[in-house]
Structure formats: structure tokens, C-alpha cells
């Protein structure tokens, strides 16, 4: 609520033709203060670890900017606290991996970011989740979820044609269904970005469920991308897939990170090491440690982190 007073008066968020503004929000008891709206061209390496420079898909530097943030976020299912006082940032231009043993609250944290956790009746939340300087509670849930897309453990295309799957989000979010002519370029673009276009371009009317598991998961990526999200939440997207499909999906994720902020929950530490720029380790609901991937895996500060990643990396 306090943050709202800090909004620019002319509209919501930065204008599209100006490079994204860096907002430094200083947390304090009172109103947060924003320092400097625009100070010359953005420094792509601002706030990054030295090893992160040039981490883009084609070796170009990637502009890292905060998209989402949680502040002292706790989530409880009845009496059981699944996530305890977690404060974490989600930045565009990088992949954030949430790691930790089963039942440590990673998935709950992930599902709280698009308020999907509210589907569980007993879930209660304290603390704040902020998307582009605005609490997620201020968004209409429809709008929030089209800005924060999600991919699940099991590929879950709908029992429709490939085209209808990708167009689903666009068709169903408004009251008026757009024409196929308008949808088509968006669908094609989403399929291209998800790396599926070449395989399905000739059979868009075929049933989506006839695709292989890996193709289905990429179709789900395309379905999320079609509504142009700013953040993409991936809940162990490769756990049901074979190694080849996994590596294709990992490549897709790395390619996407320059346009979409990506958070991935994974049990596979090698996967986290391969694709993540920043890693957060959770244990029993606590955010134990977060930092650059190289640091968390190479030189963990916490003993618990060391014990966990040590198991995977010797």
C-alpha cells in the first residue's frame, strides 16, 4: 500500500519506449524512497557477480532488472508452516533456481508467486509479494496470472488441438474471443519461442495429447508465452521427461531468460548448475542461502547448503 504512493503519476510502470528504469527501493519503517529514475544508459552489469557478465544466450550481456520480490513471506497450510519468512527477488534476465529437499516449501513458494496457492483451501499467507512495485493482491488474479505464467511438473496440455491450446489463454481471459486471424501470429510466435514451431507447423490442428512428453511440455511453455508473461514459474518442468527432451527444454529456458524472468524449482542440482544464474537453497521452509549459482554450489556459506549440494557435487 505504501508503495503505491511512490508510483509515477502519469501511468503505471515505465513507458515502453524508454529503457526499463532501475528502481532502488530502500526499505524503512515509513514510505520507501526511490533514488534516481534514470541515470544514463543502464549498466548491464550492475549488481551482478563478475562471473555473471556475458551470461546471455548468445554471449551478450543481459540486463538484469527486478520483476518480483517477496518480503517476509510465510505460507501455512493449517498449522503447518510450509514457507517461513522468505525474502527473495526475481529478476528478469536471469534464471533463479529454487533447490532443496522434498517438502522444503519450494513449490509452495513458487505457487504463491502467482497466487495459485490460494486454490488450496487451508493455505494462509502473511508477508508481501510484489510485482513491479505493486502488491500481487492489488491485481485481478486473471491479470496477475497472465503476467506470471506457470509450468507444471507433468505436461498438461488441454484435450484440444495444438493451436487451441496455445490460443487458450488469449481466448479465455477476456469477455470477447479474438478472431483466429488475430491469434495466428501470436500462436506462431509463441510456438517459435518455445522451440516447437518446426515440429508442429504442419499439423496445428492435431490433438495436443498426441505429442510426445517433451513436445507437450514445450507446448505448455508456448501456451504460457502466448499471453506474454513477465515472469515464468517452472515447477520441476523436466522431471517427467527423458534426457534429450530435458536438454531441449533447458536450452529453451536459457534462450527465454532475456525476455522473461524465470524461476525454476528443481531437484536436479546439475540442472540448476547448468541453467541458473542465481540459486536459492530452502530447507524446511527456511530460505537458508541465496546467491550466484557459482557461489552457492562452489562456496556455500551455510553448512546446511554445503551438506545438500555436497551430496550432488562431491
Amino acid at each position, binding site marked *: 500500500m505504501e508503495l503505491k504512493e511512490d508510483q509515477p503519476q502519469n501511468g503505471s510502470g515505465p513507458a515502453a519506449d524508454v529503457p526499463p528504469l532501475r528502481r532502488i527501493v530502500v526499505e524503512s519503517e515509513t514510505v520507501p524512497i526511490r533514488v534516481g529514475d534514470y541515470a544514463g544508459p543502464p549498466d548491464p552489469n550492475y549488481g551482478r557477480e563478475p562471473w555473471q557478465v556475458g551470461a546471455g544466450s548468445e554471449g551478450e550481456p543481459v540486463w538484469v532488472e527486478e520483476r518480483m520480490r517477496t518480503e517476509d513471506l510465510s505460507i501455512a497450510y493449517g498449522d503447518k508452516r510450509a514457507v517461513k519468512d522468505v525474502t527473495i527477488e526475481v529478476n528478469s534476465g536471469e534464471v533463479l533456481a529454487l533447490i532443496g529437499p522434498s517438502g522444503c516449501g519450494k513449490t509452495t513458494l513458487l505457487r504463491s508467486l*502467482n497466487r*495459485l496457492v490460494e*486454490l488450496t483451501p487451508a493455505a494462509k499467507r502473511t508477508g508481501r509479494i510484489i510485482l513491479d512495485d505493486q502488491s500481487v493482491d492489488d491485481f485481478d*488474479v*486473471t*491479470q*496477475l*496470472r*497472465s503476467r506470471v*505464467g*506457470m509450468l*507444471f511438473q*507433468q505436461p*498438461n*496440455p*488441454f*484435450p*484440444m*488441438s495444438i493451436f487451441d491450446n496455445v490460443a*487458450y*489463454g488469449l481466448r*479465455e*481471459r477476456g469477455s470477447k474471443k479474438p478472431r483466429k486471424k488475430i491469434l495466428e501470429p501470436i500462436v506462431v510466435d509463441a510456438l517459435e519461442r518455445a522451440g516447437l514451431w518446426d515440429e508442429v507447423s504442419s499439423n496445428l490442428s492435431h*490433438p*495436443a*495429447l*498426441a505429442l510426445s512428453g517433451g513436445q507437450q511440455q514445450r507446448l*505448455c511453455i508456448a*501456451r*504460457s508465452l502466448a*499471453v506474454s508473461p513477465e515472469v515464468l514459474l517452472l515447477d520441476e518442468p523436466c522431471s517427467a521427461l527423458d534426457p534429450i527432451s530435458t536438454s531441449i527444454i533447458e536450452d529453451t529456458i536459457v534462450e527465454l531468460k532475456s525476455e522473461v524472468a524465470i524461476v525454476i524449482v528443481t531437484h536436479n542440482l546439475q540442472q540448476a548448475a547448468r541453467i541458473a544464474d542465481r540459486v536459492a537453497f530452502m530447507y524446511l521452509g527456511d530460505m537458508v542461502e541465496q546467491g550466484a549459482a557459482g557461489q552457492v554450489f562452489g562456496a556455500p556459506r551455510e553448512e546446511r547448503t554445503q551438506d545438500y549440494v555436497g551430496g550432488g557435487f562431491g
Partner: protein
Amino acid sequence: MEAASFNEVDLQEQTLEVDRTDRRVELLLGALASTILLLIAGMILFVFVKALPSFTHNGLAWFGSGGSVDEQLMNIFNSPAEPENYVYHLRAWPLLYATILITGVAVLISVVFSVLSGIFIVEFAPERLRQTIEPVVKLLAAVPSVIYGLIGILVVVPFVAEHLISEARKESVAYVIQLDGTSILVGVFILTIMICPIMIAIIVDALRAVPEKWVEGAAALGVNRWRAMRTVSLRAIRPAIVAALVLATARALGEAIMLSMVAGSVGFAPNPLDGFTFFLEPARPLASTIVDNAEGLSVAPFGQTMYAFAAILLISSAFLSFAGWAARKSFSRYTLGGR
């Protein structure tokens, strides 16, 4: 080495034994299945052969209208004993019309009501309510139709006669038909109550079988619960809705006792031009006609006429099954292997 070869021999023998048992079971089941098929084929053939004279004497006019169908049936019943003097003259339209009208309207109302109740039970009902409704619905699906008929004739018909049929209304159609409360309105009403539970039970089971991940996927795209239900779950269960529709229509088509009790049991074709009175006019579908005239079957031409009604019902249900199969096939095009 030796032990291994012993095992091999044993295994082979076991496999042979299993094969023999399998083959016996296969033969037995195959024989049973073919017997049932033969019985059905025989029954259909028998009915059609028996029904043939009624159709051949009337030609296509059998399906038309003309005169009072009850009078015609009476004449057939009273035909002279010599086969060459048998009376077959029949214009069955009022009976066909009543069958189509009562079944059609009841099924249409039921399908809408059942889909909505199914959604409510699965998606929106509080747990305690759901635990009460579901067993009750399944129980209702098994209630014998004569009980519905009894309640209909003891409660609903008098109510309709008392509250909906005024003297003026009675007089307005007195020259063609007498209004006493037994009517297509009561028939459709009770038939709807009768077939809804079957449809609800099937739809609830189907909705529950819709993978949670589809609903979640829709929610994650920002689609609200009701819309996700409509665009994903309901789409996915269309084959089950068709199956429910076929089953309910078959039950409605074949419903004889209850309808003969509450729908008036008069071979009359209600006239839609009568306005609301139309719903209060009596009618009698084919199945009820057969039941009501069961005692006259020993009169040869009369029996053949009843077989003709049965043949029409058989054709309708066969056509219904085929249409249902075709619809299910086209609807499950996208669900293949998706469950």
C-alpha cells in the same frame, strides 16, 4: 547349469498349462457373448417378422395421422376371426408424437439440469452437502419407475387438476379432450425427475475423472474457475455427457408404466396451438400403449400391431446407440490417450 535347465522345463510346462486355461476361458466367454448376440438378433428378427402385416397393410400412412388412434386400435382388437377379414387400419402418429414429445422435452430439460448439478456437486458444493447429495442421487437412479408413477398419480396429478385446470380451461377444449390432470406436463415432469439421477451420476463421475492438472493449467493462465470448468472440463467430458444422454433417452423411450399412469393414457395428439392448455392435455407414448393393451395380444392382428410399436422402439434405440457412438467418437478425438 542343471538347475537352470530344470527351471526352464518347469516354466515351459507352466506356460502350457496357463495357455490351456486361457483358451478354455476364452472359448467359454466367446460362446456366452455369441449366445447373447444370437438372442438379440433373433429377438429383433422375430419382432420385425411379427410386425410386418401391420406395416404392409398401412404403408407409409402407418406413420401418419387420421382419425382416432384409440378407435382404430379398438377396431383391430375386434376384427373378425377369419384371417382374410383382419382389420389393420392404423394411423399411429399421435402415439409417435407423444413419444417424441415427452421423451424429447424431458431429456432436454434433464441434460441442462444434470450438467449444472454435476458441476455444482463436483466443484462448488460444500463437502458435507456433497456427501449427502451424492448417495441420494445414486439411490434415486435405482428407484423403480412404478413408484414414481404412484407418487405422480396420487400427488402431482391431483395438484395439477386442482390448481392449474380451471373450468374455463376445461371447457375450451371440451369438444376434443377431457382434462383431468393426467397430462404431458406431469409426464414430462416426473420423467425428468426419473432420468436426471442417472445423468447426474454419470456426469459427476466423469467430472471427477478430469485430471486436476488441466484445471490447474487453466487457472495458471488466469482463467477463472467457472470458465475453466466450461472450457476445459465440460469439453473433456462431452463423450460422457453423450453416454448419459443415450442412457437417459433409452430409459425415457422405454418408460411405460409411469407414463401410462400419469400422462393420461389417451391416444391424443396435444395441440401446441392451445397455448398453455397444450401442456395439460393427455397423451400416450408407444411403450405405454403396449403395456395398456397387453391383455389383447392374443388377438392376432392386434398382437401384430403391438409388435409394430415394439419394432419402432427397437429401431429408435438402435439408432440412438449409433448416434451416441458417432458423437462420442468425434468428441473424444482430442482426448486420445490423455487420461
